[in-house]
Every structure is written in C-alpha cells, then in structure tokens.
C-alpha cells in the first residue's frame, strides 16, 4: 500500500539505525505519547534497532488506558439499561471498571455493539427510534472531530435518541504535567502525528521552549518513528530544544482548520481525570452548554460517583515514564491481559499489554 510499504523498508530502517548509532554519544530518554506508536515500536521491534544508550518511555497515549475508572463504570451503568444500545470502539469493551467490564454486561443481556465510526452509532439511532443509542466518545484530539460531527449530524438530521458519554483528553496538557513533575525523567518527546494532523503543533512550541525539551511530530510507520527518534536525538546532542515536524506529509503547523472549528463549536476545554495519573487541569473536552442535550450524563440519571483506583497498580508511574512495565512486581503475575489490574494492561496499545505480548516475561 502506498505510504505504508515505503515507510516499512528494511534497508532504509538499517540505514536510519546506523545513522542513529552514529549521532548518539550519551544516554537519552525519549517518550512517545501515542498508543499507535507504542504498538508499532513493539510490533516491529524498533526498540531493538536503537543504540543501547537510548531508552524509549511509553507515555499516556492510549485512549483506552487513560479513560478513568468512573467513566468506565458510567458506561457499564448505561449499557445495563434496557432502553440503551451502547456503542463503542472495540477495545473499550475489555477495559475493567471497578467491578466488571462491558463484555460481561453484554453477556448478561446488555445491548453493547462495536462500531468503526461514531457516525455509524448515529445511523443505528436513526434506525432504532424507540431505543436510546449512546456512543462512548473516548480519545485524543484525533477522535474529537469525528465525535463533534456525530452530534452535529444527529442535531442536523433530527436524531434525538442519540447521545455521547464523553471522556476526551488532550495531549499538550499531559506533556506539561509530566514535564512539571519533579520526578520527570523525560528528555525529549515524540508528538503523535495524528493528533497534530488535527490540532497542528503551535501549542508545543512554548512547551519546548519553557522546559528545554525537543518535541518531534512523528508518524506511525517504522521509518517515521526511527526518523523521529533520530531528529530528537540530534537536537539533544546539539543542545537544541525545538519543535520539528517529521510527519510533514500529513501535518501542517496550523492543523486542520475545519476540523478544529467543528471541535470548538461542540466541545469546550475542561479539567479531566486520567486513569493512573489523576486530574490534570484543562486537559479534556466536554460538550458545551448549547449541546448538553447530547450529553449522556445529562440525559440519564447516573448513580456512579467518584471511584478510586486499585492501589497496587503502578500505571500512573508507567504513563509518566517513571517506571517500565516489567519493573512492576505484579507484571505478568497478578496482572495479565486476562486479569488486568490497570488499563495499561488492557488495551493492545497499553504499555503493559504491549510489553506482555511482545517482550519476554516467562
């Protein structure tokens, strides 16, 4: 496929790896904040092509992993209601709430369905006017335009039985929270290409300047990631801290204006809890007052309140790059993909699950 095969070329990967070895003179710790990149790194074994002096840390980039426990519990509560068809992306179904998961709710009669796009959930609502269709609107900046369009489309076409359970988060405030922490070990970031496709990368420029860290907007394919790391290391070696764009074929500095406008019309910035990290100010999106009729938390009276996370799970430290998954005493023993203690073990994009599947743990 065009733009996939070219960016998976083995010979070019070896050359990039050699160039990276050549430019690296000391130890560097670089964090990617994108579930898709984490997945690529482990699936292709990209970490094994790096000089040993470079450590990759897997940040809070997986939308499934960072969705807080109480939003999962609300999803489960909604999915149990007989009038509700609960729709979601596939991998949210296996994320445990505080007592069960959506797969179990489905097994007990809840109407839970996987969709590829939120527009398909609106279509489901149109075809089932006697039911309430709720879509689990999780994700980063990348998914927000799709969810914004879904509610706009519902209003525009008079589909009143559609609503969304919102758990939207934003990358730059999370990067800032990591950098501002006194235990921060991260020296450079790969910013997620798809996120920047929507929002551009202006917002990263003050972060790079204030904290003195290079930030490289990076794509998902093996060569993209290797080149992103290469550019980041080169900046570190040269003592620079700038925003660079490795993913110029898809990312413009301003992002995608129509998509940003659509998101701003429907959503506003709000505080958000992140699973494993806690509340980060101005790090999420919620529906604006004028769109609150499409907010499932308004439409239904929910009993779920604040929920605490299991104490043993160190996913917060993993997401902030303080620890690696295999440094957790529960890793692979009391915490496995079948019996996850925290969401980083649940999603295939989660750092712990990716480690469990792709790294030796026997």
């Amino acid at each position, binding site marked *: 496929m065009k733009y996939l095969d070219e960016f998976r070329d*083995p010979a070019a990967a070896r050359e990039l790896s050699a160039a990276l070895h050549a430019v690296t003179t000391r130890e560097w710790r670089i964090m990617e904040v994108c579930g898709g990149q984490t997945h690529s790194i482990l699936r292709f074994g990209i970490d094994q092509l790096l000089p040993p002096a470079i450590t990759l840390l897997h940040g809070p980039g997986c939308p499934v992993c960072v969705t807080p426990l109480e939003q999962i519990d609300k999803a489960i509560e909604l999915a149990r209601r007989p009038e509700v068809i609960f729709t979601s992306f596939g991998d949210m179904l296996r994320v445990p709430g505080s007592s069960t998961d959506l797969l179990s709710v489905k097994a007990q009669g809840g109407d839970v369905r996987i969709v*590829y796009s939120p527009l398909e959930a609106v279509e489901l609502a149109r075809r089932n006017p006697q039911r309430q269709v709720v879509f689990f609107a999780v994700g980063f900046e990348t998914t927000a335009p799709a969810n914004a369009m879904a509610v706009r489309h519902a209003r525009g076409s008079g589909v009143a039985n559609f609503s969304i359970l919102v758990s939207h988060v934003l990358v730059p405030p999370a990067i800032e929270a990591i950098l501002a922490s006194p235990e921060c070990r991260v020296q450079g970031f790969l910013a997620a290409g798809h996120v920047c496709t929507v929002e551009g990368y202006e917002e990263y420029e003050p972060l790079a300047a204030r904290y003195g860290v290079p930030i490289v907007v990076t794509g998902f394919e093996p060569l993209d990631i290797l080149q992103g790391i290469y550019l980041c290391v080169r900046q570190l070696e040269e003592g620079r801290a700038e925003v660079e764009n490795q993913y110029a074929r898809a990312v413009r500095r301003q992002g995608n204006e129509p998509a940003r406008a659509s998101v701003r019309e429907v959503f506003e910035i709000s505080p958000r809890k992140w699973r494993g990290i806690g509340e980060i100010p101005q790090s999420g999106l919620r529906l604006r007052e004028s769109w609150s009729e499409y907010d499932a938390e308004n439409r239904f009276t929910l009993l779920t309140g604040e929920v605490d996370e299991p104490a043993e799970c160190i996913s917060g430290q993993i997401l902030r790059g303080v620890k690696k998954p295999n440094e957790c005493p529960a890793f692979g023993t009391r915490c496995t993909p079948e*019996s996850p203690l925290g969401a980083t073990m649940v999603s295939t994009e989660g750092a712990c699950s990716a480690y469990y599947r792709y790294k030796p743990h026997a």
Partner: protein
Amino acid sequence: MPDFTLSCPIPLTTYPHVLMAHGGGGRLMRNLIQQLFAAAFDPQSDTDSAVLAVSGSRLAFTTDSFVVTPLFFPGGDIGSMAVHGTVNDLAMSGATPHSLSAAFILEEGLPMETLWRVVESMAAAARACGVRIVTGDTKVVERGKADGLYINTSGIGFFEHALVLEPASIRAGDAILLSGDIGRHGMAIMSSREGLQFESDITSDSAPVAGEVQALLGGGIQLRCLRDLTRGGLASALVEISLSARARLGLTESAIQTRQDVRAACEILGLDPLYVANEGRFVAFLPADQADQAISILPAASIIGHVERLGEPLVTMESPIGGSRIIDLLSGEQLPRIC
C-alpha cells in the same frame, strides 16, 4: 517473588458467565477447555482429532460445530464450511477422511430455500472431498433462538501410514511450513459485519486440505505434526503447538504471505492478520532437509520458520525491519482498535 497484597477489586481471571471470548480461540478458551472440559472428560490427545485403536487398526475421530453469520459469505457458506472443517480436522491427524455425520439445529421461520441451498452445498463439498455423509439429526428451535441454522459434523478417518502426527513428534531443527496466504476467511466475514462493513474482493479461503496432506505424505515427507488454522489464526495455532510440544519456535514475518487487500482491511480496523481466522490453511512441521521437497509438492506454501529448540514453550517472530517480538495467545476474540 515479593509478597504482595492483592488490593485490586477486579480479578477477572474467572468470569461468572460465558463470554464470546470463551469461543474466540484465545487464552480464555484454552482455560475453559483445560479446566472444565478436559477435567471432566477423557480427551485422547491435544490435536484436532482423537486417534483410537479399534480392533487392531487406528481410527481418527473428530467433531466440530459451525455457527457463522452471514450463512453465505464471499467464497463459501456454512454448508461447505461444515464439511471442510471436519475433513480438515481428520486430515490434521494424517488420516484419510472416510464418513461424516451432519446434525442441524434449525430456527423456526428459516426459509426452506435457504436450507436447501446449504444442504446442496454440503453435498457438493462432500463429493469433492470423497467423503460420504452417512447419518445425522434434526432439531428445530423457536424463532430468535438461533441465527438461522447451526450445523454440527463429526467424522471418522483411517490411516494409510504409520506416522504419528502430534506435537510430541516435533524435533529441534524442524522446518515450519505454512500452506498458503492467511487471514482471508476472517476478513471476508468481517466485511459484512454490522458497524464494520467494507467493500472488497476478499473471499474466504474455505477449502478442504486433505488433498494437500495426502500429497505431502505421498511424496515421502516425514510429517511430524499438522494443525489447521481456524479461530485465532496462525499465531494461536503455533502458540498452542509450542505449549503442547514445549518447543521454541522462531518465525520470519516476511515469509508469511498476506494478500494486500487483507492487510489493508486489517490496517483499517486495527487487527493483526496473524490472529485472523482461516478455513483452508494449515501448518506442517517436517524435517528441515525435506523443506525444499515439500515446497515443490505444494508450490503455494512457504517455510515460515524453524523449531529452535525443545524444552521452552515460546514463539518469537522477526519483523521485516529486523526486530523481534513474542507471539502470544490473545485473551479472546481480537477486537478492533481505536488507532
């Protein structure tokens, strides 16, 4: 191991209800079979067919049930699949398939014409495989209690050679042969699933493989172990064998053939083709010095890896760019990812 208090309120190792994941070909299904079924019954082997000694000769015996929506899909239908599935399970023990049974669970309201098409397809598939459907059963359930119809087939087969094909026969150094490209059946079904649909020319690979196995045996290949790829795909089949044989398998990703459209559909939905279902592909373990000869017998096949050593159940795969990763069982069914 450090002593830790399990403070987590969500140990979902055991679910109080059956989930779809218990039939997904992954770890939950393996646990269900080992802890519940195998504990209660008397399984004869960890292969797809039991091999029984009956009056001095060996008999292969197997059974399989077929539930698929839609009933007719690009490249096949539930009827032909029900014949191929059981014929293939027999072939995987090295047996020559002989006779099948066919049991039907029909849903009230199923159009008779649909049933007739399915039965015709079964009959044609049986003729093509050289087996006879000799006995059967019929039950009808109320409307809404089945997806149109479910089929169970059982089969018996006999052996024309003395080889014992099972994981325990695998030796260090053996080559691993894959009989063709992967992922077509699962993606053909997925293309018609509500909420995930796409248009493509992908057709199921549903086909009998007994002929290919006979060709290998007839060509003098000293087969050690065979496994057809069904739910859970190539990855799950190899992990299962690795666990049974306690063998470390090393695979090369670039040797595994996947059609471009299958790869594309997997990219769109966030699925790994290694775990996508097949209905007409198998892996064969054979002595490495017979690998070239095996490929000349089955030109569509490829050697995808080797048995590195015995004693350590582990499957690793080298990626096209040179890194390697561990291949493990999934928990249950593969779920489409967000990004």
